[in-house]
């Protein structure tokens, strides 16, 4: 005869008490293991679906959403490609004419004045003599010109107010300015309609003199690895004044154009010929950039979903474990009350306090151990059933985590014992004389 035989006999005698404790542990462990298995399935799915989504996005963006540049007819396109700048102009009125037309193949109109100037024209940039002729691009922009026949959309390019300047990464570096952190933009039509007047006044990072005018630098763009890093953006009207191009622009950038036909540039050229005769159209900007952006967005969405699930599980699982632990403690407390006469006689016949403690903790440990096995099986099965894994995935081997099984086999009995600790100590400290007298 030993304590464990006593524990086992009592379990067989009070099956309901044991079963309730067991279910409680199984629920807590099942919830924990189920959540972990689902999250693991989520991770695998995110990883694999993310790849699939990226591929889909690549295919989709390959055929949609390209940019075009509308230039004066006499502009030498080679000059743009080799020098990166435009020297011919066309009336600003062209932009308004295009905006008022009912053209459907074009979105997001950005008229601009483009120049290539010496970087040293910004007074606060000090260059060594060898680099004194280093150039940069100046783009005068007024932000987007809305198309009259379309609903307002969130602008792709921000307006640059008069007297302010946005600089590329390399320019910012010369000025010892760090790239600005991306602002949390609210998207959608409502926000677009609020207009720029309500925008928060941007913080001035530096004040510089450029071609005899004072500009406040309000933003440093992050490093993009293209010519934008060596570009500054100023207000369109100011650029027209600085470069003596009043009411003139060098080009109109049209972003995210859509075409139904395969020869999309030809389709736009055909449309523009009627509206803006005397212009030419070229495709602008590498589509790979747009695709990379789409891929990043897809990845961010997947990661955000995973984080949401993790935070949900992070709240739910501790609550369930706490609730079940409390329930086990209450069951143990009831068990101690029910067995007070037995405790009295066991103490009378010579059992020590530690042996009485072991009788109750032993039962809790057994409940925890068996509950852990049942709960692990149930939680893992639930996770396997509910976790949506891509087909042809060996779910069992990918989701089964031996370290998780080991952890539950160790932690569940420990928590069950901890929950039963106070009732067990109370039992071990009961005065046998009082119990036997009461009986």
């Amino acid at each position, binding site marked *: *005869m*030993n*304590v464990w*035989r*006593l524990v086992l*006999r*009592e379990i*067989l*005698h*009070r099956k309901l008490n044991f079963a309730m404790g067991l279910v409680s542990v199984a629920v807590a462990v099942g919830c924990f293991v189920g959540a972990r298995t689902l999250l693991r399935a989520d991770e695998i799915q995110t990883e694999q679906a993310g790849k699939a989504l990226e591929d889909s996005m690549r295919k989709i963006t390959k055929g949609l959403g390209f940019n075009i540049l509308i230039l004066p007819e006499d502009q030498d396109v080679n000059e743009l490609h080799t020098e990166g700048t435009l020297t011919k102009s066309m009336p600003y009125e062209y932009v308004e004419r295009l905006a008022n037309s009912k053209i459907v193949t074009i979105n997001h109109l950005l008229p601009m004045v483009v120049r290539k100037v010496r970087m040293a024209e910004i007074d606060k940039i000090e260059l060594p003599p060898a680099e004194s002729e280093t150039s940069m691009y100046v783009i005068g922009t007024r932000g987007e010109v809305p198309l009259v026949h379309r609903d307002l959309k969130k602008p792709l390019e921000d307006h640059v107010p008069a007297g302010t300047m946005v600089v590329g990464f390399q320019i910012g570096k010369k000025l010892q300015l760090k790239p600005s952190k991306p602002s949390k933009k609210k998207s959608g039509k409502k926000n677009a309609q609020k207009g720029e007047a309500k925008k928060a006044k941007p913080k001035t990072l530096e004040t510089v003199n450029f071609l005899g005018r004072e500009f406040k630098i309000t933003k440093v763009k992050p490093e993009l690895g293209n010519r934008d890093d060596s570009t500054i953006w100023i207000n369109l009207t100011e650029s027209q004044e600085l470069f003596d191009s009043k009411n003139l622009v060098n080009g109109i950038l049209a972003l995210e154009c859509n075409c139904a036909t395969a020869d999309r540039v030809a389709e736009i050229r055909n449309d523009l010929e009627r509206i803006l005769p005397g212009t030419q159209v070229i495709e602008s900007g590498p589509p790979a950039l747009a695709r990379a952006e789409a891929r990043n967005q897809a990845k961010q969405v997947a990661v955000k979903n995973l984080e949401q699930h993790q935070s949900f599980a992070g709240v739910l699982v501790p609550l369930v474990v706490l609730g079940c632990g409390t329930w086990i403690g209450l069951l143990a407390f009831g068990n101690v009350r029910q067995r007070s*006469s*037995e405790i*009295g*006689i*066991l*103490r*009378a*016949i*010579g*059992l*020590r*306090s*530690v*042996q009485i403690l072991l009788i109750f903790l032993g039962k809790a440990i057994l409940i925890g151990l068996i509950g852990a096995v049942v709960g692990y099986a149930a939680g893992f099965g639930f996770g396997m059933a509910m976790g949506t894994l891509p087909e042809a995935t060996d779910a069992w081997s990918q989701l089964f985590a031996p370290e998780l099984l080991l952890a539950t086999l160790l932690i569940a009995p420990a928590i069950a014992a901890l929950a039963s600790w106070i009732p067990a100590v109370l039992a071990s400290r009961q005065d*046998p*004389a009082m119990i*036997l*007298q009461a*009986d």
Partner: protein
Amino acid sequence: MLLELQNVSKTYHTAKSDVCALNDLTLTIDAGQFQAVQGPSGCGKTTLLLIAGGLLAPDSGTVLVDGTNPYSLPPNERAQFRASNIGFVFQQFHLIPYLGVLDNVLAPAIASGRTDAQARAEELIAHFGMQDRLHHVPAQLSTGERQRTALARALLNEPKVLLADEPTGNLDHENAAAVLGHLKEFTAGGGAVLLVTHDDRAVEYAESVTNIDGGQIVAPQPA
């Protein structure tokens, strides 16, 4: 002397009043002696038994069991001492409801760690005529069988002193006689029995009877 209580007093303190259960009581029992204690309800009989059994410390006085004061021992050693030297039999039997007869009789072996406990238990059960009831739980036993099981349990560790609190209170004449006979048999083997009872039949088996009232011995009389 196997059991010696010298000037033992015990008072229970309650919110309403103090109740004196034993007042300067002295009692001795030799090896092989069967001592009965009689008295009205609430006279302190059970308190006497618990104090003698090392379960309830007296307020004053000395208790010696085979020359050892159990209350001078640390709690764990006192429990071990109790397991080895003292056996208890109660009116309510106090059997463990989920254990069969054999396991109930074996229960004191958890405390004593006795290696031949199984054989000893089976021997006792056979001696009490219950060998065909080995795995019956108390609910499946008659009251006489329950008390015999409790008696076998009390004897498992071969104690020197057996303390019996109204062991025949719930038994018919035949079973009471059997139980008392077994107690008498125990003293014949050199043990000492302290029996507290109302039952006049029990007195017939005792070598001496002590009457207590109000926590004091009032009139010792020969059996």
